[in-house]
C-alpha cells in the first residue's frame, strides 16, 4: 500500500477471540486498529472517541446489536465507511443493513482477500 499513513479502523464483535485474531491480522497487514468493542453500545463510544477511517461491525451481538451501532454511527458521520460482518444471509437483513447505511456487507466466514480488498478500497478515499 503506497500510503503515507496506515488505515485506521475499529473492530466490533461480541466474540472476543474473533476480535483478537482479526485485529492482529489487520495490524500485521499495516492496518491500525484504534480500538475494539464487544457490543453496539460501546461501538458508538469508541467511534466517537477515535474517529476511524473504516468501521468493522458484527451484526449479531447481545444487548445493543450491529444495527444499533450502524444507525448511531451513521447519524454521527454520514460518510465513514461502515463494513458490516454477518453470518445472516437473509434478504431482509441485507435490506435493513443497506437502508441503515452500510457501506459493505461481508458474510462470515469471510473471504480473507475480499477483506483486504475492502480495506484497500475504503482506505484510498
Amino acid at each position, binding site marked *: 500500500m503506497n500510503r503515507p499513513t496506515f488505515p485506521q479502523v475499529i473492530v466490533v464483535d461480541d466474540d472476543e*477471540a474473533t476480535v483478537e485474531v482479526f485485529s*492482529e*491480522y489487520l495490524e500485521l497487514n499495516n492496518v491500525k486498529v484504534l*480500538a475494539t468493542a464487544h457490543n453496539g453500545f460501546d461501538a458508538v*463510544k469508541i467511534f466517537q472517541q477515535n474517529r476511524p477511517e473504516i468501521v468493522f461491525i458484527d451484526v449479531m451481538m447481545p*444487548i445493543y446489536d450491529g444495527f444499533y451501532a450502524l444507525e448511531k454511527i451513521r447519524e454521527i458521520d454520514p460518510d465513514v465507511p461502515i463494513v458490516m460482518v454477518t453470518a445472516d444471509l437473509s434478504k431482509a437483513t441485507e435490506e435493513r443493513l443497506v437502508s441503515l447505511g452500510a457501506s459493505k456487507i461481508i458474510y*462470515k466466514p469471510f473471504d480473507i482477500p475480499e477483506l483486504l480488498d475492502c480495506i484497500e478500497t475504503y482506505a484510498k478515499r
Partner: protein
Amino acid sequence: MKTEYTQDLELQRILLREINKKLKSQKALQNKDSATPSFGELQSMCEQITKSQKRASYKTILAVAAILSVGFLATSFMSLDNSNESSPLSTYYVVENVRGDKLGINTHLALSDDSVSVRILDRVGLDAPTINAIKMAILSEETVEIDGSITHKTRPDDYSTYYVGWKGALGSITEPTKNILPKSFVFSDSSNAQITIEIVGHTNPDGYDGITRSILSADNNSITKSHITVYNADKKSSNEIETIIRHEFGHALGLKHSTDPDDLMAPTITSAYPFISECVLEGLFHLYDGMSQEEYECKS
C-alpha cells in the same frame, strides 16, 4: 446447522492465527532485509491459504492446524494474546464525621430539595469526550438491557434493565421516600458543591483507582459533602474513568460496597457491564427511606 456454523468460524479463527503466524515470520525476515511487504504479496499469500482452505476438508485442516499449533507453541517467543481488556478497577470509600473520625456507617445525602450540585476539578486537562463521559455517568437517562446469564444472576434470555447514568436511575424510582431522593444534578464551579470530582494524574499510594471521602452532618445522620478522587486519570481510558465515576458517585449518594462481584458497587470493578442495576436502586431506595443498607438484601 448451528454446529456447522460454529465450526466454520472456529476454523476461520484457526486459519487466521496461522496466517498471522506466517505474516509475523515474514515480517521478521523482511525487517532483517529492511524491506516493506507489498499489499499484493500479502494478498497473494492470503489467497493461497484461502484456496487451500477451500480444497481441504475440515478434519484435515484441523489436523494441520493442530500440528502447526504444537510446533508454534514449541518455538514461539511471542504471545498471541494481545487482548486489550481493561484491568479491574480498585476502589475505596471512607465516611468521616466533622472531626475527621472515620465511621463505619452509611447514610443518605442531606438535601433541601432534590437537586445536587456537582463540581469537576480536572487537574490533568482531560479532552472533551472524556469530560462528557464523566457527565454521562451522572446525567445519562439511557438504559441497557442485559442478559442475566452474563452477570450470573438469571437464566439466559432473561433480561434486566441497567442504567447508564445516575439521573436516569434515580428518576426511575417513583415511590416516595422518607428522605429527599436526589433527582437532578447541576454542574457548578462552586467550592460549596455537594459532590466534588477531582481528576488527578498521580498514583494513589494504596493502589486505588478511585476513592470517595464523605463528610457527615454534625448529628451523623446524613452526608453533607463528598469528594471523589480519580487517580492516574491521564493513563486511563474515558470508559474506565466513566466507570469509576459511576461507582464512586454511588458512594457519594450513600451506598457502600456490594458483595456481588459482578455489581457496579463491588470494591473491585471487573464487570464488563458496570452499569446501575435494579438491585443497586433497591438498596438506594431503602437507604433514603430510612433503612440502613446493612439491613437490606437485594431481591432482584
